[in-house]
């Protein structure tokens, strides 16, 4: 490749840009003429909608939805009205959106509908590593698997053609590796796609039993037609090479295969479902041994085996975690078709653990410090605050999925757990999936305390707006949700707001809340220190002569607090990193010897 790269963005002309996978996906959607786009943030998918929001409002409507099901329903509505519609989410988001996907699969589309789902093999930032290709099979919709940013861009555009031609939602599956790898992408101008308008066809668009019974055989026929199309589509790509063995692969796995065995015959599948049977049979017959290299589940391998073709896959390549050139090489070496990597003597350096921590001054720190001393059972939720599941703050007992905390707490109470039961849930997560369980908890007379950790942003994913921030994805002012009013409206009579920086008051409020019989809600209100603006107050300092090395402040796990060289009775005194400290005063509030003070100016 010898293209000259111009970095300046030129929307109109064809150009080559260095783009992250997620940027390429957004660019592809924009070029495809998408009019309606919706998402809920989730690593590794978040940047897709952030990038789409950079295109003008005259080109397309974009929104942060309250959750992934809402996002998909908005996109489905856009497609009903004849526009090209787009939706993106992380893999576990599809669990939330799947109810709509399953119906939509029967209904089909009108305007094209593409759903980008970003999987997280290796679980870099998720609660599991489920494989979206299995979901596609369950829903009976095709799933495309790009391998690099160029393909991500191209496949999204192609997905709209497939969607409209075959009357189906199309899933484009990315992974953390693809979404967060930057490479050169040849881009093009935006297509002008006229909206087809809403067309009355209730027998198709209304999912009632009579209609669904008619639509189901159409879905089965559609699957067959797409498989037929894939036989000759450029998505299915045979790279002829040595015939001692052949590899069927796709996504980034394809890149690892090319890296370690560039001479091998490869059948690259751009779609993992449905499969082009004839192409696979022909390829299998051309090689002595057949391997499938795919990340996570043996989705392709099982289908091929069901065709009666001899194939090797998960016996050689792991089913858990992310693949790599090393693992692909090790698998092929174990099969005896290539040499193993040279064994390098280990360097005998033990790596130091560096777990992620809550930021210096994070308001969650205070809340969990208080919870740590309450002797309560704490049902946690999804967000930065999951970091309070480990020492020194360790105070969360469970974490399941978005919005699970409140209903988990109800169940714990119902089972007779003797300790006070507290659910902790962030603001964005509360709006995402915390409302129904809160309504249910009051309705069913549960005796639990709910702590809403309101830091006024979706923090874990890098600071996205939501209905509680009062701003849209494009930064426009909008209505700001009032949590206290919501709680009172659903019947919570005991609601208090508290500033988590006031540790004593917070602890006292939590005590009163847990003493209340019924559902009590504490709203711990204090903005995130990173987003939307970085907060940096005057730092504090420790008067070393007063420090008795009691380590009480170290119980905060604050990254601005470190051991100094000085000791007191054999233990390290503590000092404050002035650059990192934002002056929240939590350490000063817990200091036994009152030796933490603002820096005298």
């Amino acid at each position, binding site marked *: 490749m010898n293209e000259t790269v111009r970095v300046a963005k030129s929307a109109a002309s064809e150009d080559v840009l260095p783009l992250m996978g997620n940027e390429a996906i957004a660019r592809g959607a924009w070029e495809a003429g998408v009019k309606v786009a919706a998402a809920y943030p989730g690593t590794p998918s978040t940047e897709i909608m952030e990038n789409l929001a950079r295109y003008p409002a005259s080109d397309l409507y974009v929104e942060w939805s309250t959750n992934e099901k809402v996002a998909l329903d908005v996109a489905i509505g856009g497609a009903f009205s004849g526009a090209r519609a787009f939706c993106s989410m992380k893999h576990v988001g599809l669990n939330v959106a799947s109810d709509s996907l399953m119906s939509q699969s029967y209904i089909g589309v009108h305007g094209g509908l593409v759903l980008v789902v970003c999987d997280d093999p290796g679980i870099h930032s998720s609660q599991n590593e489920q494989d979206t290709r299995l979901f596609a099979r369950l829903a009976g919709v095709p799933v495309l698997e790009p391998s690099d940013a160029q393909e991500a861009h191209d496949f999204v555009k192609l997905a709209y053609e497939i969607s409209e031609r075959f009357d189906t939602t199309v899933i484009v599956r990315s992974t953390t590796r693809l979404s967060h*790898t*930057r490479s050169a992408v040849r881009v093009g101008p935006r297509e002008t796609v006229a909206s087809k308008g809403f067309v009355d066809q209730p027998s198709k668009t209304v999912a009632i039993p009579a209609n669904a019974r008619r639509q189901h055989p159409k879905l089965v026929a559609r699957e067959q037609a797409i498989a037929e199309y894939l036989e000759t589509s450029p998505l299915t790509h045979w790279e002829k090479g040595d015939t001692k063995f052949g590899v069927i692969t796709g996504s980034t796995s394809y890149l*690892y295969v090319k890296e370690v065995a560039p001479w091998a015959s490869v059948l690259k599948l751009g779609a993992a479902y449905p499969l082009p049977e004839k192409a696979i049979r022909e390829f299998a017959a051309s090689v002595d041994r057949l391997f499938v290299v795919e990340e996570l589940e043996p989705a392709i391998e099982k289908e091929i085996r069901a065709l009666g073709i001899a194939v090797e896959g998960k016996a050689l390549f792991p089913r858990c975690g992310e693949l790599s050139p090393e693992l692909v090489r090790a698998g092929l070496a174990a099969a005896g078709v290539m040499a193993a*990597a040279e064994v390098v003597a280990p*360097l005998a350096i033990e*790596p130091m653990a*560096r777990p992620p921590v809550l930021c210096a001054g994070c308001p969650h720190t205070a809340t969990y410090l208080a919870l740590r001393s309450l002797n309560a059972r704490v049902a946690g939720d999804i967000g930065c605050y999951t970091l309070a599941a480990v020492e020194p703050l360790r105070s969360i007992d469970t974490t399941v999925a978005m919005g699970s905390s409140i209903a988990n707490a109800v169940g714990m109470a119902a089972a007779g757990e003797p300790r006070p039961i507290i659910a902790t849930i962030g603001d964005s997560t509360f709006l995402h999936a915390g409302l129904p369980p809160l309504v249910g908890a009051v309705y069913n007379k549960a005796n639990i305390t709910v702590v809403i950790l309101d830091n006024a942003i979706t923090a874990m994913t890098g600071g996205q707006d939501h209905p509680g921030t009062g701003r849209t994805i494009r930064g426009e002012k909008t209505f700001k949700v009032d949590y206290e009013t919501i709680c009172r409206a659903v019947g919570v009579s005991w609601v208090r707001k508290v500033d988590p920086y006031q540790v004593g008051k917070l602890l006292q409020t939590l005590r009163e809340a847990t003493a209340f019989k019924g559902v009590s809600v504490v709203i711990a209100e204090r903005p995130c220190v990173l987003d939307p603006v970085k907060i940096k107050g005057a730092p504090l300092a420790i008067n070393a002569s007063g420090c008795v090395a009691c380590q009480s402040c170290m119980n905060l796990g604050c990254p601005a607090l470190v051991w100094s060289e000085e000791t007191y009775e054999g233990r390290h005194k503590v000092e404050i990193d002035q650059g990192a400290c934002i002056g929240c005063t939590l350490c000063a509030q817990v200091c036994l010897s009152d030796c933490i003070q603002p820096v005298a100016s």
Partner: protein
Amino acid sequence: MNEIVLSVAASTTPRNVMVVGVGGQGVLLISKALALIAQKQGFHVKQSEVHGMAKRGGVVFSHVRFGTKVWSPTIAKGEADVLIALEWAEGLRWLDQLRPETGVFIADVRQIVPPFACRDRRLGAATRYARETPAEVAEKVGESYALDATTIATNLGEPRAANTVLLGVLSTSMDIAVDDWLTTLDQLIPAKSREINRKAFQAGRDWGEAAHADPTLRFDKSRIAAPASAPIENAVSIEIDSVWCKSCDICVKVCPERCLALNAEHIAYVKTPEACTGCHVCEWLCPDFAITVRTSAVA
């Protein structure tokens, strides 16, 4: 410049550079700069990173590969030509990514000690921070350049430009013109920080050229890692006077090792004596002077 490790002109197999550090240090900025400059030389480039925990003081790493054709976005273990570490212990974590014998290690000796490493309350315990010194590491890799880039950048007026200092050191091992580096940096850095980053780049380059000429300058001998942990033998006993205890629960709540509890009569007792480090916090905070902590060692 007398050694060219990454000859850009003659690379047919891809060149692999790994950049590592801690969230917020600017790992991604110098990865992008390197990717961009390689792309300008006409190469196929892939730059891969993992975000998610980046803002939360966690481990950040980025793979940059360039050549006539690059397949995998990640560098296999033992195949990195260069490892750039913005933080000392992070460099050590990824050291085995380097090619044995020939790999080049460029590291800031700056230590960012995580809260997790300051957890051991036993008497005499040291931090869990990595102990290997620059001199020891130099023995293990092809070439090692360890400098105090953060101090160099701080002296220029901006500690956060340490990443650009390291890029300057890297530039002395690549045959790319200085002007190309500087214009690339200008593209990625906001106007108000350009001047300081240009200076930082040049400072790194000067250091690198001096170190190439004189191998004795390649690591900062003044930096000595923390002594190994040597906990002092210390028998601890806790006495709780049940008559004075009024069941307030304060000691239970404040114990850093969570070794105290209330018994059936709501009197405090030591539930897990083996976890007690004799830190005295319960003794100091008991409002009724009901707790006495005795330790055999006095430091």
